């Protein structure tokens, strides 16, 4: 039962790491898009 805590912690760490990194990439995308929109005066939706 005690060992189960390590297993739960391991799977939780994995999920938080992957979701956290994905969230950070989304933030960087949003920041770069906002900068490009301001700099060019155009919306930057879609692929670049």
């Amino acid at each position, binding site marked *: 039962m*005690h*060992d*189960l805590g*390590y*297993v739960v*912690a*391991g*799977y939780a*760490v*994995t*999920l938080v*790491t*992957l979701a956290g*990194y*994905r969230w950070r*990439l*989304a933030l*960087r*995308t949003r920041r*770069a*898009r906002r*900068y*490009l929109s301001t*700099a*060019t*005066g155009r919306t*930057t939706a*879609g*692929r*670049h």
Partner: protein
Amino acid sequence: MRRFYRLLSALGTVRAQRILGWATWLGLLVTAVVALAVVPADADQGDVQRLMYVHVPAAWVAFLSFGVVFLASVGYLKTGRIHWDRIAVSSAEIGVVFCALTIVLGSLWGRPVWGTWWTWDPRLTTTALLLLIYAGYLSLRKVADSPARRARWSAVIGVVGFIDVPIVHMSVVWWRSLHQQATVVRPGAPTIAGSMLATLLLAFVAFSLAYGYLMAVRMRVGRLEDRSALPVSELSTPRARRPRPVQATAVNGSPHHA
């Protein structure tokens, strides 16, 4: 090499990202359910062995990432094209995330089994060194003053740093190690039960999908950030009329455009 580049470029499309995104989260969910509730616990270690289904695939993705860094770095040194540098840095960043995750998961597994969070065992030490090499790779990029120099320095580290990957893999064979020997990638047949091997292979697929998905998103971020770094005058010029900036120079001296 060209085929490898085309494959990675295809990951950059919005459609590929969406498909990979759904496949990744579904794959990880199925892996977690099978690993935690379906496959039996290990006879010796009990439930804690279930950490293998995240620890080993995380290590695999770290190796895969650094392998891609190596190939992309060779591509950059050969051609001087900045696309290769963008692929290399994207993969290095993901590799660092998974390498750190491998160490944390190994530590969580080691505490109940070995009785310690950390020990200076050859496998653990060479893995920590691997993390330091690629964390250094990312740090170095922040201090280089020109894109061409940054890309060249990074490519050299990307090639030289990869030497540690086979050392990590062989460390349990070359030196006396507390870490268990390889059970899947080894001469002869795998030494684990069929159901455990099947679950591990499922986890490998799910984590490889996660790598593909994160690469697709990270490369998109890289393109946007590279555009953001251009002078405003170039940003406001329509793309077709914009003079193509020389972002990098090949090692042999011939310039290439981004």
